[in-house]
């Protein structure tokens, strides 16, 4: 695949252009939902259950209703007749999947701490919050299920009417006998169990929603801090029962999401329902500790993985059994998230036999859903940790076990055992580049020196080779996975009469810099300055079609649509230019903003002139419509498959158990790069977020289903102080799946880094015979493991 065709003599793509989004973000000028001024709005506050599982016996709202500035106080019972349909789950992964109805405010039984039991509307925010304290709720406690094994045992039930805590069992086992044979004849079998702890997504901007009934007719404008304005519009229509044609969803400046805003939340449904009921604007902004309970959690899995290998370490089969924590209810994509990893537990290794089973279980906890990487970090962790165990068993270096198992370059396109077709890949040079950059041999030598000196500060180095499937997604494939939407993306380009350009995209950036990158793609193709190009997005009235931003899809799918729409509009412009220049269209070439007759460059017509001619329509070719506008909706033929090598170097203090991340090297192959600075920013943020899972973060529940760390005092999101400067490099293997040769980069760092760090820690601690440390590898956990290995009584 050639790099994208350009109509410019000086290429813009590939340059480190400063992000055009940043000045207003950095100066505080950007407008988030909570910044939007709205007269006459009612402020919504939600009373949340302090009980993980309980019957609501009585709710007394009398005192709250009489408090100053309070407009209304409503219980779930009182709102029953206002609901149209339960909260949506768009991914019924099996026909038998159990999905109990879930309404924005509980009427009878609460299923997790944070489940809503009453709602207050007041004329100011403080009054609304103060009124919550005056509502008296009597609960009758019910049995609480917290641990996944307890859920699986079905002794107590989260939803007794279902008769089981299991929502679904999903199996991917193309050839069971092949797997059985492999394990029967394997020289080595490695079996591991890993826990993927629950994580709080912790976007910088909390969630928020403002619903404004429009003055004429019964239309509603919904401002929401969401990644998915388009999907939200459809789902709100289906859930609230308002015609989709009467809904306009706007995602203004959105301060990050990491998947947590890829959802349809009860507060959005509730705000629209109440705005309709009272004909008043209704607004709500989440508080940080409230968000710990009310916004979806990430991960939450127990993984069992078995590898079968030949004597030399070559893999024969991978067998995986997951228990996935759904939480109290299914949110928009809850059941599907673990399955996104279900195709990738063999990593980037050539594995002929494969078996994957996932059991989704309900617990009395906040629902889980997509969180940066969504299924793929979990898969990468399991296989990359297991590869280190296998290396140890075979008696070879972790780098060597990977070399022996990589899918060789000549096998691409590679049909994987689970059923994907990896479009491209070239793994070995990428690994070798990483090893060289980090100085692998020298680190191993220093490790030995420290060990021979009896140093109490142990050096460890950890590898993680990853591949992900992103560029979501071919619509047909999503259909085959029972996903309720397609995976296409839409783009419109308009060359205006004054020759400025508008690009309309169906993606919904919330920090990714699409305005910058999309303008670069178009600038290159049209041979004009990116400054002449505006990128419009995240408003369903302006960009009516789109499938939004998640799963590292926006550039590979949405950027490709922008590129193809640009080509399409140029084709039309060429017809007009040919008409005026009185030549055949095929005799024209296009460069630097002008059509010229091949062989006589003096005979030319500027794109700006073409645009004006298209607008006046005084003299157009017969049958051609006025104006220069083109729309392309592009459905990708395949996923994309970014890959890379991440290497962590750690020092573990044997006395305190503290891990210091000394160095972090990553070599990522995300295909062609439109703006390398944005690529690096994504990778660095992703690495930090993945290291956070490995070392710092965990949503901790007690046995009664209370989330114990709802503030950043106790939920340890790390800061820049906790990291060394990352050392980034790349290889470039363009994807043949899309015209840009790009793959997507939003999740790569987060997918790769957790096993790199844990492999490094286990490597450092191998002198103690330690084989695994669960995440997060807190100092106390490490110290306990060392103490235990020494037989110290603990």
């Amino acid at each position, binding site marked *: 695949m050639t790099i994208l065709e350009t109509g410019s003599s000086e290429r813009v793509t590939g340059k480190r252009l400063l992000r055009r989004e940043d000045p207003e973000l950095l100066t505080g000028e950007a407008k988030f939902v909570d910044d939007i001024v709205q007269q006459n709005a009612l402020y919504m506050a939600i009373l949340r259950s302090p009980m993980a599982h309980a019957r609501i016996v009585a709710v007394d709202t009398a005192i709250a209703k009489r408090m100053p500035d309070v407009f209304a106080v409503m219980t779930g019972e009182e709102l029953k007749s206002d609901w149209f349909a339960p909260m949506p789950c768009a991914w019924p992964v099996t026909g038998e999947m159990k999905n109990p109805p879930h309404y924005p405010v509980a009427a009878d039984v609460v299923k997790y701490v944070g489940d809503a039991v009453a709602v207050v509307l007041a004329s100011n925010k403080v009054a609304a919050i103060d009124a919550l304290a005056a509502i008296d709720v009597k609960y009758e406690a019910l049995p609480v299920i917290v641990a996944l094994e307890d859920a699986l045992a079905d002794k107590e039930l989260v939803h007794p009417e279902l008769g089981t805590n299991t929502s679904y069992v999903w199996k991917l086992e193309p050839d069971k006998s092949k797997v059985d044979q492999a394990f029967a004849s394997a020289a080595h079998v490695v079996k591991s169990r890993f826990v993927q702890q629950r994580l709080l997504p912790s976007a910088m901007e909390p969630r928020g929603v403002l619903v404004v009934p429009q003055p004429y007719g019964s239309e509603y404008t919904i401002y929401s801090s969401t990644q998915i304005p388009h999907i939200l519009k459809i789902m709100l229509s289906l859930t609230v029962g308002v015609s989709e044609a009467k809904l306009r969803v706007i995602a203004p400046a959105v301060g990050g999401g990491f998947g947590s805003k890829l959802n349809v939340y009860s507060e959005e449904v509730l705000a629209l329902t109440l705005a309709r009921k009272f004909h008043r604007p209704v607004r709500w902004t989440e508080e940080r500790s409230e968000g710990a309970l009310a916004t979806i959690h990430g991960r939450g899995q127990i993984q069992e993985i078995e590898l079968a290998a030949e004597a030399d370490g070559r893999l024969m089969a991978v067998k995986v059994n997951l228990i996935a924590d759904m939480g109290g209810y299914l949110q928009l994509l809850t059941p599907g998230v673990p399955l996104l990893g279900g195709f990738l537990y063999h990593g980037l290794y050539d594995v002929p036999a494969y078996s994957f089973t996932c059991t989704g279980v309900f617990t009395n906890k906040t629902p889980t859903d997509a969180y940066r990487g969504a299924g793929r970090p979990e898969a990468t962790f399991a296989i990359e940790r297991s590869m280190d165990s296998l290396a140890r068993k075979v008696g070879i270096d972790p780098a060597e076990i990977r070399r022996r198992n990589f899918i060789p370059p000549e096998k691409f396109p590679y049909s994987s055992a689970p059923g994907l077709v990896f479009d491209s890949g070239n793994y070995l040079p990428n690994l070798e580049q990483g090893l060289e950059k980090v100085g692998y041999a020298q680190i191993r030598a220093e490790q030995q020196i420290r060990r021979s000196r009896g140093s109490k500060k142990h050096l460890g180095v950890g590898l993680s080779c990853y591949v992900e499937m992103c560029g979501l997604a071919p619509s047909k494939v999503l259909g085959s996975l029972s996903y309720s939407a397609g995976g296409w993306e839409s783009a419109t380009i308009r060359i205006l009469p004054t020759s400025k350009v508008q690009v309309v995209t169906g993606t919904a950036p919330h920090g990714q810099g699409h305005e910058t990158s999309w303008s670069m793609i178009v600038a290159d193709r049209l041979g004009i300055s990116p400054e002449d190009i505006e990128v419009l997005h995240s408003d369903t009235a302006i960009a009516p079609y789109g499938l939004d931003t998640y799963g590292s899809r926006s550039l590979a799918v949405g950027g490709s649509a922008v590129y193809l729409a640009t080509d399409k509009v140029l084709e039309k412009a060429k017809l007009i230019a040919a008409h005026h220049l009185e030549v055949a269209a095929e005799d024209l070439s296009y460069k630097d903003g002008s059509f010229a007759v091949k062989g006589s460059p003096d005979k030319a017509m500027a794109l700006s002139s073409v645009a004006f001619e298209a607008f006046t329509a005084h003299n157009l070719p017969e049958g051609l419509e006025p104006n220069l506008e083109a729309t392309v909706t592009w459905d990708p033929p395949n996923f994309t498959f970014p890959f890379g090598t991440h290497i962590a170097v750690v020092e573990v203090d044997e*006395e*305190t158990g503290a891990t210091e991340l000394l160095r972090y090297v990553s070599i990522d192959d995300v295909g062609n790069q439109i703006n390398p600075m944005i690529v690096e920013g994504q990778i660095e943020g992703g690495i930090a977020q993945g290291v956070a899972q490995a070392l*710092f973060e965990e949503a*901790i529940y007690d046995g009664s289903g209370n989330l114990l760390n709802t503030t950043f*005092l*106790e939920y340890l999101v790390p*800061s820049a102080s*906790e990291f060394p400067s990352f050392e980034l490099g790349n290889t470039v293997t363009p994807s043949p799946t899309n015209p840009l040769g790009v793959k997507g980069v939003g999740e790569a760092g987060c997918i790769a880094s957790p096993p790199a760090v844990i492999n490094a820690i286990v490597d450092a601690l191998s002198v103690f015979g330690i084989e695994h440390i669960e995440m997060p590898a807190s*100092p106390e956990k490490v110290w306990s493991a060392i103490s235990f290995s020494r037989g110290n009584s*603990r």
Partner: protein
Amino acid sequence: MFPASFDYAKATSVADAISILSSVDDAKLLAGGHSLLPLMKLRLASPGMIVDIGSLTDLSYIEDKGDYVAVGALTRHHDVQNSRLLKSVVPILPYVASRVGDPAVRHRGTIGGSISHGDGASDLPAAVLALDAKFVLMGPKGERVVPASEFFVGFLETVLSSDELLTEIRVPKFSGGWSFQKFNRRAQDWAIVGVAAVNNGHTRISLVNMGPTPLRATAVEAALADGASIEVASGRASDGLDPPSDLNASSEYRRHLAEVLVKRALAEALR
């Protein structure tokens, strides 16, 4: 996070602050706000009145008083951290201040606020305890001077009465060996365990977050005085203490950390 509603008064002088404190039942002083405001936002504290002493700039000073340095209660951590005088005559104090929170916190938080709050998990109270500092407390009946060793009474509790105001910290000059060991997981966090050690012929050691108040490691000090080795003495770091268990660390792990950190602190201070 919104605090419950409260009344607000801006004190124009120390005397004014004391007079307001004396006339209101549940008033709290507000200096840098970095201890009180989070508690109020979490609604763990709901004072009826806030007395803002933030504009009493005459309480912000660092002065040489011969054998001690007088530090005004409203001196920000940032100013303690960067004081040339303190760096030359009590170097441990600016170092400890440099380890408090992050730059934003250090530009707002005050030494008097930190000490008055009396949090056993804070660094500066433990430092001034190891230094045998004295505190000047002003009340309706005038001033009294209380040694650090008698100031901290219980969890977030000091000898300050409700109508008193800490105005000055008197820190003895100190030229011997010292060490401050702070163990935490994120740079801006409170210590999981911290140790301040000063050695001037005899050794004083105080502990951060090993109990409800800043504490002296008296068993270690006694062992050293009896001639014990660092190794042996540090093994007594948590003798008689009941350190807290929380999400960051179990009580048992804190005991272990205290031993490790005391050992490291002594190795540095006694060098």
